[in-house]
Every structure is written in structure tokens, then in C-alpha cells.
């Protein structure tokens, strides 16, 4: 138990001073270098800041702790000019040394295997130089176009007080100290995390004094909590409860999400090593109908792997069209009558309806074209293991974008790791285009590469892209200015409660 | 004069009732403690004594239900104490038992016919096709009707059940039957029926009985010789007439005098014993009866009296007769 000011007061603080945000599960921790989950991101985005941040409505980068930056023409050196007079919440100074400390921590030889995002964000970094108190230089091993975008991420990139890290054994999961608008107060396991306004914040101070993150696992329980006045904002809801929420006078927040929900064919073995069979199965499935009834308008049917707002997206790309008759014929000719499908039991951010329902829906479609599907569904841990084992014809998965760069989506089809490239797709042409895209500077040329990659993927039909889930939140009518960024973070500094 | 059927030599049974942490016994209950006597062929040997004095335990040792702690049982000249399981079972045919509680001694899930047939079948005494006939015969012997063969025990009264128990014991044509208080649980009017039946059968089949009871009046009626037990030990043995006419041991005397007489005119002099039977776990040193005895001598507290023959066939364990 941690003591806090709240303890000694015998009455609840005024409701307008407190914002209660209910989410589905508990963060793994609050050390940005050590966690990789979306639930942590929401909390951390209020405590920490990175050198850069994303624009409110897109993934374009903007200054944050760095006022400005220069990139050398060869794309190997990045120089950042830092905000002056910024202090960490523990009173220590934020400066170039702190930046170096934070990045060095995640570079070899210091990096440890549990720093999930370190290779992703800093994998291209050679070293960090302190130029002066407020200037820092980062040298890369090779040019990497997504690097700036990475520095705005909430994983790995935020700046932690070096003192706190030293005090806490290089792990601030339970004792985060950043520079952000809210300070960490306490964390009751399985219940809530309490933050309080950082009154010494260098930028515009937050409006609401207390922020509480509550963890309510069950979706409908969160709705009850909202309607019962136990929470101000809830997330992770699905389409079926929208009416219930609006009927109770509460509001819905809806925004496009940076994710993809897909079904993968196991291209490494029969029968899906044959592109024609893959296409036939895709033809059997009426994706728009499926998405409409499973997600009721709160997910968009996917026409491409990339969400429509991302660089590289092209309207002209389309997936295989619904044609059950053709599908039935091809499948019959290929002699396919039964298939083995594996899926996960829980809802995922990109699939609120659970993998199981999705699988059953697809099972329904395939039975109409004469293919019997057996489903094995597993909890998430086991599922990942089953994916690794590779014993399936069809499997379900999804991806949530990390940094808004198209490479972040399309590279999945190029890697060897069977838990990422679950279609076990292998295409040399595709792989070399991916490598090229990584080093090409941002711009139309680069975007063209990704459009090309999308086309290859669609033609080859290694995946059946199903939907892009919208971010769906609900909030009390007296809450204003709430937004949920497409990278999955919820900065509360600007939120007002009447 | 009489041929000995069973000779019981210094028989003891100690129940271990507490062990220490390592399973070593630390307290024993001496239910039967060094008992010796002989049962003659075709006699009824009565055994009386108060509740808990070890009568049932003794009977159960004789029918192999308990292994004695020490001592010897010689049956028809053969030592049957330390036989292997298989051989022991072969003696089942010879020694049978009738139990005290007619309600608990019959398997409630078997018909009485099957109960009686079972010993015949498992001992292979008769060819299968003759078993049924024999069952009916036995039923008739104990005064039950043929048509009742397929009824279950719960459909019978206590006296009738006791008859079934008797028929079961008779089925193997035993030589010795241990009757453990066969009438204690029965009503007076039924008691007489069962006692008469037992006498009749004894004559008819030439049986030998060890007849256990806690009342001297019942034993008197049926037995030829009577033994009196107190706290795991025999205190007196005598032929029936001798014992009732001339009881020697103070306990026997008290026991006899305690029996109410059905004759209001003859109010006899009562010996009322003080206190209760002590616990067999820590029996008093010396004579076991001395804590309740009305003729206590100095010796009694320290020395155990020997069991000696004071007149032909009359044995007693008391310092008064040293």
C-alpha cells in the first residue's frame, strides 16, 4: 500500500476533479522500454513524453521534448535541439545526458531481451552523442526512413528520469517518472492506477486534477459501469452496446483505427500452397456482409492491408471478390472438402467479436460451398504457441500499427518468424521491395513501393484482409475534448469535465 | 469321562488403542487376558460376565475373526492358532457363530434363502442342484416356511431373523457353534422360542455350544457347564448345578444375587456391588475384582489369584480359596 493525499480525506473529491477511464485489462507495467501492450500505452502517454510526438489526427511527427531537429543528407545523423528548463516529475533535470542515458539503456550491450521494442525503435542506432546540455546527436548504422516516426512512439521512445531508473534497478514498471502532464500516484493491482496533475509541467497544464484508470475485464461490465456513473470514459466496446450507451444519454467516440484483422492461409503446405485454392476460399467469403454483421458498422471492410489514411494506401487495390459459385467449383475440382482452422477465444483490439465468432462465421460461409471446417480455438497464449507449431490450414490474426509507417504493416509478410508471418508467406520479390522501402526517403517514390507490395499481396492472396477496426469509446456527456489517437494512446491533458 | 473338543490355552487378545508418532503401540486394551478352559464334545458351555468383559472377543477369536495376541487353540487335537489363511478357512466348516444383533448380522441385500445357501456354495458342500433342497430343509429346521425363502431380512421380526442366523450357522454342519448372546436383543416371549430351538437343535445335530450371555438365568437353562468372566479373565468354572448351588467367587455370588426373582414373596438378600467395572486399559493390579469386592483380603490388591480346581470340575480364581 502506498499512502496518498486522498487517504486522509474523508470525503470523495468533487466529481469534476476526477476522470475515471475504464479499460479492459491491467497494464503490464509502466516502463516504456519493458512493455509492449496497448493498455500500458494509454497510461504511459499521460506520464511520459518522447523527443517527438504524433499529430493529434495523424501519424505525422511534431516537436515534443525536442524543439527541432536536423537530418544529415546521408540520412545517418539526427541532431535534436531540446526544450530548455524541462524537469522530470522527481525534480531532476531533463537534458541531453538524460536522452543519452535512455537510449543507451536500450542499445547493446545494455539492452536486455525483455526490452520488447528496443530492436524495433533503436535497432538502426549506432550511438548517441551529447553535444551540449540541450543538444543531442544520434548516429545510425544505415539510413532508416521510419526512424523519426519511431521516436514518437509510446513504446521504447519516451524519456524516463535517469534517477528513477537508477533508484529502481533499471525497471520503473511500478514507479514511473516522466516529464508528462500527469504524475503517477499509486497502482492497486487488478483495480486501478491513479495519476494526479503535474503542476510543474513545462507545457500547458492539464485541466482535470485526478485521472484514474480502472480495469474492468468484461465489455458489458464496462458499459454498466459507464451507465451506472462508475466511469467517465470506457474503451474496447463493440458495436452491440452502442444503442444501450446512447440511450442512457452517453456519447460515443468513433475514429478510424490503425490496424488490420485478417485470416491467413498456411501457404507452406497443401492445399494452400496453391494460389488458386487460396483465391477460391477468399471468393467464398462475403467480407462486407461478415464485417457488417459481426461489427455492425464499427469496423470497415478491408480492401487492402493498410488502413486508408496511411501513406502507400491506394484506392485502386482490391481483394478477391465474393463469388461463391466460382469458389465452389474450384474447390470441388481441387477435391477440397475439409479444412482445419485455428483461432483465439478472446476479443482483440482489431476484432471485438472474438476470434471464435469470426472463425464460426467463416465456417458458415465455407459450409455453403461444400467445405467442412473444423475449428480449434485456444486462449491467446496457447494460440500463439499453436501458430508457431504451424499445424493449421487457416488461422486468424491481426496487427496494430506501431508508428504509422507502411513498412510496419507490410513487413509482416516478409519475416521468417512464424508467429508474425503466420501465412508462412515467402516471396523473394516481395522481400527485396520491403528492403528497398526501408531505405528510400519518405515521399511518393516510397509510397509507390508500398502500393506495389499491396498489389502483390492481394494477387497472391496469402491473407484474406477482413477489417480495420474503428476505435470505439464511450464517455459521459459532461466530458469534452476527449480523443483516442490512432496509435492507441489517450492523452488526457486537454480533456475537460463540466 | 468327556472327550475334549476344543482346548483353549492361555489365550489373550490385546487391542492396540494408541500409538506414538512412529507407530509404536503405547497403550493396549486387554480384552481377553490369559484365559484357559476346555469345551467338551456335545456340551453347552455357558460364558457369563458383565458388558465389556471380553466375551465377544473370546468368541471371535475362536471363529478366526481375530488373531489372538498369545495363547493356543487346540481343536480336535490339532493346533489351529497359527495356520495360514487358506487352512484357517477350512476350519470354518467346523466352527460357526451366531451373532448378538439379529438386525445387523444379515446382509440386507440378500434374500434369506441366499444367505443360508451361501456357506454351502462357497464351501462346495453339496452339488449345486441339491443346495435348494437343503436350504428349504434348514428353513424348516429353524421353523421358517418354505415360501419365505425369497424374502429379505427386513421383512422379518427379530426372532425370525435370529432363526435365519441359526440356519446359516447350521448349513455347514459345524461341530461347534459360538452363540454370542443370541437372545439378548429379543423380547421375552420370543426369547423362549429361540432358546427352545437351540436346545432342540443341539439334540438333533449333536452340536457343541459355547453359549455367551450376560444373564445367569438364560445360561442356566441351556448349559451344562458355566464359566464366569470378569475384565478379560475367567474367575470361575463349574458344572451348572454346582455353580448355582455353591458359587465360590464373590463376583459369581453377587451376579447370582442380583438377578431379580419372579416371586414377590421371596425377597432375597441382595449383594449390591459398589461402583462399575474398571477400564480394561489399566486393569487394577492384583485381583481384578478387588475394587468392587466385598470380601477383600490384603493379598488381593497385590497378587493375582491363581485359577485352581477346588473341587472336581470346579475352578475358581480367588485368594479366599488359596
Amino acid at each position, binding site marked *: 500500500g502506498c499512502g496518498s493525499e486522498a487517504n486522509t480525506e474523508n470525503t470523495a473529491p468533487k466529481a469534476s476533479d476526477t476522470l475515471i477511464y475504464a479499460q479492459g485489462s491491467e497494464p503490464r507495467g509502466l516502463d516504456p522500454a519493458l512493455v509492449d501492450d496497448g493498455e500500458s500505452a494509454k497510461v504511459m502517454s499521460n506520464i511520459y513524453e518522447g523527443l517527438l510526438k504524433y499529430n493529434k489526427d495523424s501519424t505525422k511527427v511534431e516537436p515534443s521534448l525536442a524543439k527541432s531537429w536536423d537530418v544529415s543528407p546521408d540520412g545517418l545523423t539526427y541532431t535534436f535541439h531540446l526544450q530548455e528548463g524541462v524537469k522530470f516529475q522527481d525534480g531532476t533535470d531533463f537534458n541531453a545526458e538524460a536522452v543519452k542515458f535512455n537510449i543507451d539503456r536500450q542499445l547493446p550491450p545494455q539492452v536486455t531481451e525483455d526490452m520488447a521494442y528496443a530492436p524495433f525503435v533503436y535497432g538502426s542506432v549506432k550511438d548517441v552523442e551529447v553535444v551540449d546540455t540541450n543538444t543531442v546527436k544520434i548516429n545510425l548504422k544505415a539510413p532508416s526512413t521510419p526512424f523519426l516516426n519511431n521516436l514518437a512512439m509510446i513504446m521504447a521512445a519516451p524519456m524516463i528520469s535517469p534517477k528513477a531508473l537508477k533508484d529502481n534497478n533499471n525497471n520503473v514498471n511500478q514507479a514511473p517518472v516522466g516529464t508528462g502532464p500527469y504524475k503517477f500516484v499509486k497502482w492497486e493491482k487488478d483495480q*486501478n492506477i491513479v495519476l494526479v496533475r503535474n503542476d510543474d509541467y513545462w507545457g500547458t497544464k492539464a485541466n482535470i486534477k485526478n485521472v484514474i484508470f480502472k480495469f474492468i475485464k468484461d465489455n458489458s461490465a464496462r458499459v*454498466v459501469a459507464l451507465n451506472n456513473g462508475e466511469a467517465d470514459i470506457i474503451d474496447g466496446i463493440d458495436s452491440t452496446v452502442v444503442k444501450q450507451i446512447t440511450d442512457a444519454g452517453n456519447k460515443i467516440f468513433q475514429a478510424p483505427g490503425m490496424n488490420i484483422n485478417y485470416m491467413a492461409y498456411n501457404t507452406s503446405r497443401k492445399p494452400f500452397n496453391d494460389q488458386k485454392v487460396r483465391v477460391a476460399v477468399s471468393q467464398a467469403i462475403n467480407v462486407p456482409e461478415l464485417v457488417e454483421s459481426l461489427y455492425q458498422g464499427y469496423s470497415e471492410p478491408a480492401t487492402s492491408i493498410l488502413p486508408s489514411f496511411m501513406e502507400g494506401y491506394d484506392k485502386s487495390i482490391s481483394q478477391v471478390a465474393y463469388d461463391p459459385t466460382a469458389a465452389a467449383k474450384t474447390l470441388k475440382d481441387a477435391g477440397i472438402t475439409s479444412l482445419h482452422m485455428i483461432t483465439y477465444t478472446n476479443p482483440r483490439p482489431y476484432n471485438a467479436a472474438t476470434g471464435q465468432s469470426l472463425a464460426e462465421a467463416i465456417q458458415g460461409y465455407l459450409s455453403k460451398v461444400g467445405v467442412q471446417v473444423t475449428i480449434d480455438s485456444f486462449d491467446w*497464449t496457447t494460440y500463439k504457441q499453436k501458430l508457431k507449431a504451424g499445424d493449421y490450414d487457416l488461422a486468424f490474426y491481426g496487427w496494430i500499427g506501431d508508428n504509422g509507417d507502411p513498412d510496419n504493416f507490410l513487413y509482416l509478410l516478409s519475416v521468417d518468424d512464424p508467429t508474425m508471418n503466420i501465412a508462412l508467406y515467402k516471396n523473394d520479390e516481395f522481400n527485396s521491395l520491403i528492403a528497398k522501402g526501408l531505405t528510400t526517403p519518405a515521399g511518393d517514390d516510397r509510397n509507390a513501393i508500398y502500393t506495389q507490395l499491396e498489389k502483390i499481396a492481394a494477387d497472391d492472396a496469402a491473407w484474406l484482409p477482413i477489417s480495420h477496426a474503428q476505435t470505439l469509446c464511450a464517455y459521459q456527456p459532461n466530458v469534452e475534448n476527449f480523443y483516442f489517437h490512432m496509435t492507441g494512446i489517450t492523452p488526457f491533458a486537454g480533456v475537460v469535465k463540466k | 469321562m468327556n472327550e475334549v473338543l476344543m482346548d483353549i490355552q492361555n489365550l489373550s487378545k490385546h487391542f492396540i488403542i494408541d500409538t506414538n508418532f512412529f507407530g509404536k503401540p503405547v497403550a493396549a486394551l486387554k480384552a481377553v487376558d490369559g484365559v484357559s478352559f476346555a469345551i467338551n464334545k456335545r456340551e453347552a458351555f455357558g460364558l457369563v460376565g458383565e458388558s465389556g468383559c471380553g466375551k465377544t472377543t473370546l468368541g471371535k477369536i475362536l471363529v478366526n475373526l481375530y488373531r489372538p495376541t498369545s495363547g493356543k487353540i487346540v481343536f480336535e487335537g490339532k493346533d489351529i492358532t497359527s495356520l495360514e489363511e487358506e487352512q484357517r478357512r477350512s476350519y470354518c466348516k467346523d466352527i460357526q457363530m451366531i451373532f448378538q444383533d439379529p438386525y445387523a448380522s444379515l446382509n440386507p441385500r440378500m434374500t434369506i434363502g441366499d444367505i443360508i445357501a451361501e456357506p454351502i456354495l462357497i464351501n462346495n458342500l453339496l452339488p449345486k442342484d441339491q443346495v435348494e433342497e437343503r436350504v428349504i430343509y434348514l428353513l424348516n429346521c429353524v421353523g421358517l416356511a418354505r415360501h419365505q425363502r425369497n424374502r429379505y431380512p427386513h421383512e422379518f421380526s427379530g426372532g425370525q431373523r435370529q432363526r435365519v442366523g441359526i440356519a446359516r450357522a447350521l448349513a455347514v454342519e459345524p461341530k461347534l457353534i459360538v452363540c454370542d448372546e443370541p437372545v439378548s436383543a429379543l423380547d421375552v416371549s420370543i426369547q423362549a422360542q429361540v432358546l427352545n430351538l437351540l436346545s432342540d437343535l443341539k439334540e438333533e445335530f449333536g452340536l457343541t455350544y459355547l453359549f455367551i450371555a450376560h444373564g445367569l438365568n438364560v445360561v442356566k437353562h441351556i448349559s451344562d457347564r458355566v464359566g464366569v468372566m470378569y475384565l478379560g479373565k475367567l474367575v470361575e468354572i463349574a458344572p451348572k448345578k454346582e455353580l448355582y448351588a455353591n458359587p465360590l467367587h464373590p463376583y459369581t455370588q453377587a451376579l447370582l444375587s442380583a438377578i431379580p426373582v419372579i416371586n414377590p414373596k421371596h425377597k432375597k438378600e441382595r449383594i449390591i456391588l459398589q461402583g462399575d467395572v474398571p477400564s480394561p486399559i489399566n486393569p487394577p493390579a492384583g485381583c481384578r475384582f478387588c475394587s468392587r469386592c466385598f470380601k477383600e483380603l490384603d493379598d488381593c490388591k497385590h497378587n493375582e489369584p491363581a485359577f485352581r480346581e477346588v473341587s472336581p470340575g470346579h475352578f475358581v480364581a480367588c485368594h479366599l480359596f488359596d
Partner: protein
Amino acid sequence: MLKYIIKRILMLIPVLIGVSIIVFLIMRVFSPDPAPIVLGQHATQQAVEAWRQANGLNDPIYLQYFHYLQGALTGDLGTSYYTKTSVTKEIMTRFPATIELAIVAIVLASIFGIVIGVISAVKKNSIFDNAGMLLALIGVSMPIFWLGILLIILFSGMLHWLPSNGRINPLLEPIHVTGFYLIDSLVTGNMSAFKDALQHIILPASALAMYSMAIITRMTRSSMLDTLQQDFIRTARAKGIGEGRVIVRHALRNGLIPIVTVIGLQLGSLLGGAVLTETVFSWPGIGAYTVACILKSDFPVVQGVVLLVATIFVLMNLLVDVIYAFLDPRIKFSKKEV
């Protein structure tokens, strides 16, 4: 008595070792590999291997067990793979919530169960008896989680009377003394916190109590019917004392003996039932957490929890036996006293 208790406590050791072996086998031999989930979506194959090596998962199973036992004996139950916090701490932060819930539930169940059971027995075959028994029957037949959801829908969703989840409004949270909010808030004189905690606990405790209450009601009734048949009740009545006294002082005092056993056993099964209740009510206890950890293959935590719960269970049994001896003077711990 003391000797008996010591003997019993010594006998717990093999039981607990057995329990740890059972769990160890289930978790480490048959369960999925935790590495990929611990290391997250960008982990490489090497990282996974390195992690397994570092956590000793590549050792032979008996060695793993030996290391575990070694740690456990020195009070170190290991570190959660997932949160990297010590298992002891993980458990201890959640345990009071479960215990508080279980205790409130068992108190509710016992009070209602005994009262209804006694009245049913005394007024055998009356309308009250029939209604009480029907209630008890439904109580043992309803899935606890379903009941929980129905309660939430009714009292939170429709009537808005009671909160649907959590233990307390975090801003009202009392200073931690015992970890039981109801007690802590009273001790610190924080009445609004007490009220809030009470409101939070009512629904989950009722859902959890329902099954036990039904069992206790039925047990009480049959035990009382049994006792009321006994000869000594007739003796008591023959003394000319009031019927109320006969029932409470003579019958209930004796009838309580088997009821105590049932209550003791129920407390054990409540810890199991908490798994479902906590899931439904987002109660921050050990039950729901353990399920999550089982699904995440967080071995150290699951082993720790099971060991703890088993310890509590066997200690409860011991306690029940001691209370039993207290209630029933016929029971002796040593047969020597016979």
C-alpha cells in the same frame, strides 16, 4: 491437544509437497511455453531461447522442481514472468481482497443458512420450510457466474442501486492496515470509505454466498432434524424448560457440530468459487488473477497461489477439527484418555 495440533501440522508438509508436485507437473510439463507471450510480438527466436535459459526452463524437470522447492523453503516463491514482481508481493496485494470477499460471503451464508435451516427444521413441512428448501435447491443449482451477471443487470444496470465492479472508489481508499477495506476504513474512522466498500462488496459477496448458503441451509435443516429426534432433547423437554431454549441451547448446540464442518469446507470451496465471482465482478482478488496467470503460463505465480490456497485449505481443516473438539467434548485428540 497441542501434541495433536503439532502432529497435524507436521502432516501438512507431505500434503503440501504433493500439491506442489501436482501443480508443477500440470504447469511445467503440459502447459504452453510462456516465453513468446512474455517477450511480446517482436521477440526473436534467440531472445526466446535466451529467456528460457535465463529462467531455468531448459533444465530437466526434476532440477526445476528442486530449485523451486529450495526457493519455496526459504520463502522465495519466484518472480512473475509477466510483471517481473516477486510472486509473494503479487499474491499479497490481491489476497486480502479475496479473503475479505470470502469472509463476508461465508458470514452471509452462515447467518442466513443457519437461521433458515433452523426454522425449516422446527417448522418441518410448513410453507416456510418448503419455500426455504426450494430456495436452497435453486441456490445449489444456479451457476454462480450466471447469478452474478443477473445481479449486476438488476442492481447496477437497471436499478442503479449498487456499483457493479471493483472494491472501492480509489479516491476513498482507506489507509492499508489489514488490507481489508471494511476493517481498515472502520479502524481509521473513514465512514464514507466504509459505506463505499460495503456497497461494492454486497453484490459479489451475495453471488458467492448463494451456493454456500444453500448448502448450509440444507445441512442445518437435516442436522437439526436429526438432533431434534435425539433422546436428550426429550430429556430437556421433560425438565420443563421453554421450547426456544430447547432448540437453541440443546438442539442447535449439538446440531452445529456437522454444520461447522460444512462451513469450514465451504470456506475452502469459496476460494474456488471466487475464481468465477471475481471474473464477473472485476474483483481484484487472487481468483481471477490466477485464471489469467494459468492462461498466460505464468508458472511461478500459479504455483505460489495454489500452494497458498492449499495451505489455507488444510489449515482450515485443522481449525475445523479443533473447533469440532471444542464443540464436541466426546472427540479426543489422543485415544489415551479413553
